[in-house]
């Protein structure tokens, strides 16, 4: 009797907290998204939170701001993932070579990933300042002719934020790919060499196919992280200038905590939720194949 209940008793505290802080809020957000929900009483037309159907969704997605935010998010996520996966693959191949000091190099290159986001973002704000070190370096190297106000101009802000973000996550991809590379048996390379395959063919026909599972998992993790990215953009630009870096998450935050329109923000949140769950399910499938 006691044995039968033990597993449930052990999971009870964790499951209770997860239910209270994850599942209940999820349910709540869906409900809020179809009701009139303002934070302050003065904003409300009537008492309570009447059902309004899809009005919040219409309100959120009828204006250009949310659409622009979706567009910015798409560019941000795709650009970040591309840079990170390609950069991380290159870095992993490099640090997979045998050389003295490899362990030290592997540790030191992890630093950008290990830094907390807020100081990292602040450092980039200062370095990207028009009189900062990046502009001095770029002019000194002859790459740009004049100073670029990176974060202050709507054309350059998004690329600058993407760069600062992707820089931080290249080491993450590197770690994942190094783990993947260490799982490829040497015999495969030896066999390919015996068959007369060049280094490039070995990379194409041995390395890449065998890295496929790990790259799938990595890409999905990165996509989920970037869809939910908040802190780095908030610290660097707060979504500006003129919404050039306003990700959908930043948009939802502003609608809720600057305009106090919780109902409308919830509608945006539900859309985000659907995407995240979709990626979550894909991730579950991918990790099963991976482990």
């Amino acid at each position, binding site marked *: 009797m006691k044995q039968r209940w033990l*597993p449930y008793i052990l*999971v009870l505290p964790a499951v209770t907290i*997860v239910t209270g802080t994850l599942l209940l809020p999820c349910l709540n957000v869906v409900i809020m998204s179809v009701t009139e929900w303002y934070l302050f009483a003065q904003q409300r037309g009537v008492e309570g939170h009447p059902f309004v159907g899809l009005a919040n969704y219409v309100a959120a997605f009828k204006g250009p701001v949310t659409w622009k935010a979706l567009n910015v998010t798409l560019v941000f996520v795709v650009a970040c993932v591309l840079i990170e996966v390609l950069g991380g693959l290159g870095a992993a191949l490099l640090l997979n070579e045998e050389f003295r000091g490899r362990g030290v190099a592997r540790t030191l290159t992890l630093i950008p990933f290990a830094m907390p986001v807020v100081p990292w973002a602040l450092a980039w*704000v200062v370095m990207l300042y028009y009189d900062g070190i990046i502009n001095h370096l770029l002019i000194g190297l002859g790459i740009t002719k004049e100073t670029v106000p990176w974060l202050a101009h709507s054309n350059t802000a998004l690329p600058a934020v993407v760069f600062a973000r992707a820089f931080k996550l290249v080491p993450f991809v590197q770690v*994942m790919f190094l783990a993947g590379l260490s799982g490829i048996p040497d015999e495969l390379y030896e066999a390919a060499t015996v068959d007369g395959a060049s280094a490039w063919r070995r990379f194409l026909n041995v390395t890449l196919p065998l890295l496929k599972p790990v790259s799938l998992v990595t890409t999905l993790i990165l996509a989920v992280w970037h869809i939910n990215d908040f802190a780095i953009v908030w610290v660097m630009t707060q979504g500006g200038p003129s919404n050039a870096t306003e990700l959908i998450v930043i948009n*939802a*935050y502003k609608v809720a905590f600057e305009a106090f329109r919780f109902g409308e923000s919830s509608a945006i949140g539900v859309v985000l939720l659907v995407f995240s769950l979709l990626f979550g399910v894909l991730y579950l499938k991918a990790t099963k194949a991976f482990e």
Partner: protein
Amino acid sequence: MVTRILLHRKAILIYATVILYVGISLFPLVWMALASFSKDPYFPLLPTKYSTAAYKEVLSPSDPSLSFPSWYGNSVKVTVSVTLLATALSAFAGYSFSRFRFYGRNTLMYTILVGQMLPGVVLLLPLYIYLKDLRLLDTHFGLGIVYMTFAIPLCTWLLKGFFDTIPTDLEEAAMVDGCSRVGAMARIVLPLAAPGIAATALFAFITAWNDFMFALAILSTPAKFTIGLGLMSYQEEYFFQWNILMAGGVLMSIPALALYLFLQRYLVTGLTRGAVKG
């Protein structure tokens, strides 16, 4: 002879690329450290004179509303409590998921895993309202509850994995010798899983330490700020005092960097289980 020269060339190429790559990776941190020791608050390219004045200002602030030491203390308080509680509760859940096959096990497990992928900003709205109703807005206790949302799934999932690696024979032998289930868990499994438990706790610590968004929404009194939020408010106050800004940044980074050094061995396990966000 030719191959030797080629090998030699390859080695030089590899070293040159590695040095370049390591240099680029270290650049932001090194720049931060140099800037934090600058004597002048503002400098065009690199600092010209160095001093520890910025650190003195950060650690014993002349403006009491920008109290970096108390932000540090707040962060330590919230983060350590969340870490300890989440690790303890998750150890039970993780053990249960690892050792028992019970009705509803898979549903509960996947709920916890997917819960980890939910966007923070989506949970933020209802959690904010719950805290408001409970009068826990702008309190460390409220923030701690919110941190449990990501700490519990992360820890449970990681710990289940670590428990899975410990063979069940040992516990069974102990139970044959008259040990109870809970006794076997406490005497056999927990000590064997100790490194994994420590790693889990550190991952939870880092995640909470690095949080920014929840603190931004929930805390409003400057004296109660956690360190990330405090640093952000530095930006408004000290935008042209780069040495102070960066001294704060260095002090916030040190614990996270030190912990990663310990955690390197567990990094891949932690990362594939969706653990730490970068």
